[in-house]
């Protein structure tokens, strides 16, 4: 358990770092864009929210920097993220909630699917070294991983949406319909999700296949796998419980890093498909110069990534008994 507590501590430090960076960026920028933005707020927003914004962007306060910082952290942790300039001054937290489920669905599901499929395929291809899978996969996925995520999205749009007309071009659901919990609507949502999901899946899976394959190859050469063969265990058991389980561990630690790539790719994919998720909202807020929304989205994405990392740490602790002792 000490392992998990240590990891949690580290992740909290990272969160604090993200908060601090968020605090300082607007203050370091030349030409104080915050001032201009605040001018649009004045008179339209209730005093409490106004104060939160002032604190967040360091405008119009006569307080010292440290006090601003403390107030900012307090506000953020209690959910006072300010108001969105591009959404008629609605509270940022409300605005974010509109986009969150879409991203959770799209990105969450494809990430998990990609990881599971990727590690499985990687394990199998390494297990049958020299087989068809093993010779074809590495070069194919090396090339695919060199394509920018969003370009694969563009290709998908052109090929499947515009030319073949199999799937819709953009958005999360057909614009003219009203969201409702009916089968028809669910089907529409799924229909719209296929191309973006496929895009993210194709580009993300390659990395996991390749790293798992490389780990497996190292592990399969280990003595305990030879020992398992000597004991006459069924090949399937050796593949999963002896080789796979041990090869997976470094992959889980690497999950944190690859997640960063998946997120960045997902943001661009949402942009290409005008998919109403958090990433798309982030890019829109940049174009609209909606700084409160933009910064809060950054924090949200950071928190999501940190939570995912913590989950993979839990998985590591379950699978690897060595982490459970105090070494």
């Amino acid at each position, binding site marked *: 358990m000490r392992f998990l507590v240590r990891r949690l501590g580290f992740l909290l430090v990272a969160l604090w770092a993200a908060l601090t960076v968020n605090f300082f960026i607007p203050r370091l920028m030349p030409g104080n864009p915050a001032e201009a933005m605040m001018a649009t707020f004045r008179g339209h927003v209730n005093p409490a929210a106004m104060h939160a914004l002032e604190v967040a962007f360091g405008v119009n306060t006569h307080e010292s920097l440290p006090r601003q910082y403390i107030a900012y952290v307090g506000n953020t942790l209690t959910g006072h993220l300010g108001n969105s300039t591009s959404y008629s001054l609605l509270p940022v937290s409300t605005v974010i909630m509109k986009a969150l489920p879409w991203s959770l669905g799209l990105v969450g599901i494809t990430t998990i699917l990609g990881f599971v499929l990727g590690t499985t395929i990687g394990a199998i291809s390494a297990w049958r*070294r*020299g087989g068809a899978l093993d010779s074809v996969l590495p070069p194919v996925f090396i090339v695919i991983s060199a394509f920018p995520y969003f370009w694969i999205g563009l290709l998908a749009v052109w090929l499947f949406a515009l030319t073949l007309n199999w799937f819709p071009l953009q958005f999360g659901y057909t614009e003219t319909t009203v969201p409702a919990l009916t089968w028809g609507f669910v089907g529409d949502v799924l229909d719209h999700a296929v191309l973006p999901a496929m895009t993210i899946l194709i580009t993300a899976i390659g990395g996991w296949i390749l790293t798992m394959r490389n780990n497996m190859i190292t592990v399969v050469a*280990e*003595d*305990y796998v*030879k*020992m*398992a*063969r*000597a*004991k*006459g*265990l*069924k*090949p399937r*058991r050796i593949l999963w*419980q*002896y080789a796979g*389980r*041990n090869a997976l*561990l470094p992959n889980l630690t690497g999950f944190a890093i690859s997640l960063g790539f998946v997120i960045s790719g997902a943001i661009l994919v949402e942009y290409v498909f005008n998919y109403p998720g958090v990433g798309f909202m982030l890019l829109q807020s940049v174009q609209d110069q909606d700084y409160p929304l933009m910064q809060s989205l950054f924090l949200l994405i950071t928190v999501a990534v940190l939570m995912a990392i913590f989950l993979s740490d839990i998985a590591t602790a379950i*699978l*690897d*008994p*060595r982490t459970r*002792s105090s070494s």
Partner: protein
Amino acid sequence: MSLLDVNDLCVDYATPNGPAHAVSHVNLSLEAGEFLAIVGESGCGKTTLLFAIAQLLTYPAAFTGGSVVFNGLDLTSLSPEELRQRRWRDISVVMQSAMNALNPTLSIGEQLADACRAHTDWDGERIAARSAEVLQMVSIDPVHLASYAYQLSGGMRQRAMIAMALLLEPQLVMMDEPTSALDVVAQRSLMRQVEDLRQRLGFSVIFVTHDMSVVSHFSDRLAVMYAGEVVELGSTRQVFDQSRHPYTQGLMEAFPSLLGAPRALTGIAGNPPSLVEPPPGCLFAPRCKYVFETCRVLAPELVDREGHATRCHLVNPVVVA
């Protein structure tokens, strides 16, 4: 009928420069209950031979000829599934480094249960009982069934490996340098344990090591390997006290004696030959003190005289008709 008959066994390693002949035409036989030691320097092929007999070779090693007959059945003729079913019940293996040979993410108990479930239809209770039994045989408290490899000391791990090897009461236990990773005291303790178990349970042992002194008190017969060939084979006392092959003699002279006057230790000059392009004639010729012309031209055969076999022209002169 002997328990194990190895006939003309050949193993090659694929290297960028061509196949390396790691094991060349090895013939061995083993009776039930016998302890055979295979001795030689690093790279002589003894471990490869061991794994070849146990049918555990992996790329880049490949079996290129010969047969391994166990209880009258040729192991090389079996399908992978048939082979898998016989493993551990007939032949078990103890590897060099228990730390590396035990799965770090499964407990000792689970690894013992693995083997039981793969070959028997015992229920959970019986598996647990047998697992506890074998651990006690090697003086390990059964509470360690729940422990993981990293939680045990080096000596304990090695003994756990031996316990695992005895789970299904095999007729042959093959050991690959099980003492190399231990200190001298632990070595002796392990060897005594193995000997004690062997007396009680009656299994045969093939023991591979580079350290003759460790094994000489316990083995019935001793085989000396050089560059992939068996160069001397006989009862331990014969090979030790009346070494005939120049290489064996060289090995003996390199060990100090516990008794007797101190003397200068000698080594064997030179290096083992290339296994990809071996020299013509005797493989030991380039380093041999007694070399003569025939040695460089004609490869000597392993000739048996009263149970003591040697591969040397000096010992077995070739009669040119």
